[in-house]
């Protein structure tokens, strides 16, 4: 297989997961989280995982399914409101949760993904979300330092991938996925459709394939998963 052909199977993808890894996951409330790779992550049996992503999903959707198995030790996210189990695990001391403002979190992932060393903002100044983050004084004004984050492994959902890993996304399923792809050492993409190199318009490609290590074919899932099941909550 040529280095530029990154299409593989779930078994190979699974072998990229390991105990103690930092895992970045794309998605916003479950939309845009790769469902097949979540099942693959669960199957892999890995534990002590540090999770970084927008939220904790729902208990039965997205990263939430994995969170409920108590095999993650840390979660960096902007909210966990849609997954009460995550809140319970946090209160029981079984899951260490760090909250970040939503847009700051994705910028932290981007900062890691573009090889910068973090950024300054005044956004959370004086609030609980300052935590013990370093303060930096620039020109007499104090800012919060937000550190870059990167992942050992990143899981991404795309609408289409070519075999090199050039990606396009679907509507609001794009969300954090481009930056998860950039910021992870091993980026695994689950795509609804896999096409040959040259089949995507180079102008419409959102994430260049250079960031992608493995591509797997999505097995499909119930598109209406989020709202049709929200009543369960």
């Amino acid at each position, binding site marked *: 297989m040529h280095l530029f052909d990154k299409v593989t199977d779930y078994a190979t993808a699974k072998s990229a997961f390991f105990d103690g890894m930092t895992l970045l996951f794309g998605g916003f409330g479950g939309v845009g989280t790769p469902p097949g790779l979540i099942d693959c992550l669960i199957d892999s049996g890995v534990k002590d995982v540090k999770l970084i992503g927008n939220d904790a999903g729902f208990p039965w959707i997205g990263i939430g399914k994995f969170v409920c198995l108590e095999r993650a030790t840390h979660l960096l996210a902007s909210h966990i409101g849609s997954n009460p189990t995550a809140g319970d695990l946090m209160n029981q001391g079984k899951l260490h949760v760090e909250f970040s*403002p939503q*847009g700051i979190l994705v910028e932290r992932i981007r900062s890691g993904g573009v090889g910068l060393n973090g950024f300054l903002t005044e*956004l959370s100044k004086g609030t609980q979300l300052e935590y013990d983050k370093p303060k930096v004084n620039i020109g007499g004004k104090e800012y919060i330092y937000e550190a870059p984050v990167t992942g050992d492994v990143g899981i991404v959902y795309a609408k289409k991938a070519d075999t090199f890993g050039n990606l396009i*996304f679907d509507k609001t399923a*794009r969300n954090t996925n481009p930056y998860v792809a950039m910021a992870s050492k091993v980026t695994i993409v689950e795509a609804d459709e896999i096409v040959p190199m040259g089949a995507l318009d180079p102008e419409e490609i959102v994430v260049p394939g250079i960031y992608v290590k493995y591509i797997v074919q999505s097995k499909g899932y119930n598109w209406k998963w989020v709202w049709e099941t929200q009543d369960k909550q």
Partner: protein
Amino acid sequence: MGDTRQTIAKRAALEVKDGMVVNLGIGIPSMVPNFLGENMKVFFQAENGILGMGPTPKENAEGNLSNAAGLPVTILPGASYFDSAIAFGMIRRGCIDLSILGALQVNALGDLANWIVPGKRVPGVGGAMELAYGAKNLIAVMNHCDKDGQPKIVTQCSLPVTTYRCVQKIITEMAVFSIVDQQLYLDELMPGYTLADVKNNTEADFSFSTNFKAHD
């Protein structure tokens, strides 16, 4: 209760002007579009990556097209999709003309508390900090008192603050307030409520706006 929320949303809708870009929080704010004038062109932004969100689809909802609460939506002509970094970039940069957010407490300085009730379920801050920080105009909409009858317009927030000095208007079922230069002003009384109702249920001190009006 349902009616109260509708009343607040309807009043908040009067703050939305033609040509605005607006971000709505979940809860009462999400009801605001139901009360907008017919011929208004307004673009709603959703922080999960849409500018130009349309109404809830009647059928054929698409799984990957939802608002920030995960509920299915549609888009209008001229809408665009983008990633989360751009979504929040436009919020922090001040491109959102108006944000309408729910609130747990607001004080007379305009400090907003809406992200956590310590010891209870912890939802997390989501995009509230960015919206409160970046929107050109921020309106807090909420019931005037909490479930225990305690005032939510307070002298000092007892709940952890989301963002300081950010709220410019408060709309409840009883009254509309403005906050200008960290001073709280009563703009108007809502139908069915008296000045005494508002005074009895508002902890923070307030003055009257120069154009204070009791009712329409």
